[in-house]
C-alpha cells in the first residue's frame, strides 16, 4: 500500500491525521468559550459528550488519530535521521527563510504529548473515565465548569497550560501549511495564502484556549453566570 510504503504516502498520513487534529482543536476551542458565558450551557455540552456510546466512539477515533500521528512522527524522524547520516557539519548557517518550528516539529510534538497527558489527567480522567468507571468525586463527572475552575485555581497548571498552548501554536504555524503542501494543494501563490491562513487559524484557536485558561485563573467567580458555584476540591 503506497500510503505506508512511499515517502509521500507516509507524509499524507501525517498530513491527514494532523488536519483532523486541527479540526478537533478548533471544535474544542469553540466549545470551551461557552464556559466563559454560561456554566449551565457548558455543563450541558459536557453531559452531551459524557459517556454516551457516540462520545466514547469519537474519543477512540481521536485517540487513534493521535496515536497514528505520533507513531508516524517517530517513523519519519527515524528514517530522516538515517537518510541524513551521522556526519555532522562543523559549521552550519540556518538560511533566513527556514522557520525554527519547521525543524523542531518532533520536539514540539513531544511537548504537546506531555501537556496532553496532564490534560487527560486533569479532565478526561475525572470526567469521562470517572463516569465510565463510576468513580465519585467531590465534583460531579459532568460538572465540567467546576473542573475547569478547580484546575486553573492552581497557578502551576496555568503556567504549564500556557507553555503547552505556545508549543501547539508553533507546531501549527508550520503544520498547517505543511499539511496542505503535502497534499499538493499549493503553488507559488497559494503557498503564501495557506501560510497566512494557517498562522491566523492557529492564533485564533490557541487564543480561544488561552482566554479560557487565563480568565479562570484571574477571576473564576466573574464567569459562568449565576449557577457557577464553587465546590471545594476534596479527593
Amino acid at each position: 500500500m503506497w500510503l505506508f510504503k512511499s515517502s509521500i504516502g507516509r507524509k499524507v498520513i501525517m498530513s491527514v491525521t494532523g488536519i483532523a487534529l486541527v479540526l478537533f482543536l478548533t471544535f474544542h476551542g469553540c466549545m470551551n468559550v461557552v464556559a466563559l458565558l454560561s456554566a449551565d450551557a457548558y455543563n450541558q455540552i459536557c453531559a452531551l459528550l459524557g459517556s454516551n456510546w457516540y462520545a466514547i466512539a469519537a474519543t477512540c477515533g481521536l485517540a487513534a488519530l493521535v496515536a497514528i500521528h505520533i507513531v508516524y512522527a517517530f517513523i519519519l524522524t527515524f528514517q530522516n535521521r538515517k537518510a541524513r547520516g551521522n556526519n555532522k557539519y562543523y559549521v552550519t548557517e540556518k538560511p533566513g527563510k527556514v522557520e525554527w518550528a519547521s525543524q523542531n516539529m518532533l520536539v514540539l510534538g513531544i511537548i504537546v504529548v506531555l501537556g496532553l497527558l496532564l490534560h487527560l489527567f486533569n479532565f478526561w480522567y475525572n470526567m469521562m473515565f470517572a463516569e465510565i468507571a463510576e468513580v465519585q468525586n467531590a465534583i460531579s463527572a459532568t460538572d465540567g465548569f467546576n473542573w475547569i475552575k478547580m484546575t486553573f485555581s492552581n497557578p502551576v497548571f496555568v503556567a504549564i497550560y500556557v507553555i503547552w498552548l505556545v508549543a501547539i501554536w508553533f507546531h501549527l504555524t508550520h503544520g498547517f501549511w505543511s499539511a496542505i503542501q503535502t497534499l499538493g494543494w499549493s503553488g507559488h501563490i497559494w503557498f503564501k495564502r495557506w501560510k497566512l491562513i494557517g498562522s491566523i487559524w492557529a492564533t485564533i484557536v490557541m487564543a480561544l484556549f488561552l482566554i479560557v485558561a487565563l480568565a479562570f485563573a484571574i477571576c473564576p467567580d466573574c464567569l459562568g453566570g449565576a449557577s457557577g458555584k464553587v465546590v471545594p476540591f476534596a479527593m
Partner: protein
Amino acid sequence: MAKNLSFTIKYWKQNGPKDKGHFESRQMKDIPDDTSFLEMLDILNEQLIEEGKEPFVFDHDCREGICGMCSLYINGTPHGKTERGATTCQLYMRRFKDGDTITIEPWRSAGFPVIKDCMVDRTAFDKIIQAGGYTTVRTGAPQDANSILIPKQDADEAMDCASCIGCGACVAACKNGSAMLFVSSKVSQLALLPQGRPEAAKRAKAMVAKMDELGFGNCTNTRACEAVCPKCETIANIARLNREFIKAKLAD
C-alpha cells in the same frame, strides 16, 4: 581595481567513505578578490603539489555555473554565499573579508558518500533520472514545433524547473536528507508540457520509488532546499510532485 585578500582556509580531507576525515588548514596570502573560489583552490593545489603534498580533491567541470558538478559546503552554506542563483564555481573571493577563516566541507548526507576529500558520489541522482526522468520518444520525422500549442506561462515554468542542474545542494542542506526539490524539479519540467503528460503518472511513481529505495529522507517542508538552490527552484515544485504522485496512486 582588484584588491588582494589574505585569509585562512580549513578544508576537509577524507580518504574514502569509511575514513573518519579531518580538517587541514592553510594561510592563503594576497589572493586577488576577483579570483573565483575554485581558482583559489587551484592556487592551493599548486602550492601543495610544489611542496610534494597530495592535492585537495573537489568536483568541478564547466566552471560557468551550468553543469552542477561543483559542490562545496562553504562556511555553513552549500555553494557558499554567492550572488543569488549561483554555484560554487561562480563564487568570488570578493564575497569574503581580509582575515576571514573559510571552512570548506563536502555535501554530508547518507545518499552522497564521500569519494575523496570534498568529492562526493552523486550517482544516486543519475539513478533517479534513469527511473523515469525522460520521455519515451518515437523517432521519425519531427513535426512542426508550433503544432503543439503551449501556454507561455507553462513553457516558462517548465524552463525554470529544467534549469535544475542536479548539483545536490538541496540534499546537502536538508536535515532530513531529502531529495524532493531535485526530484520534483525533474518531474515538473516534463509534467508541465504536453509532451510529458502521457507518461506523467508513471514517471512520478517510478522516480519517487527510486528516490525512496536509495534511502533519501521524507520531506517535512523545512524549505532549507529552496533557500540554497543555485537555480532558485521552489517548493511549488514539491507540491506539484505530491499532486502528481497522489493522483497517480489514487488512479491505480
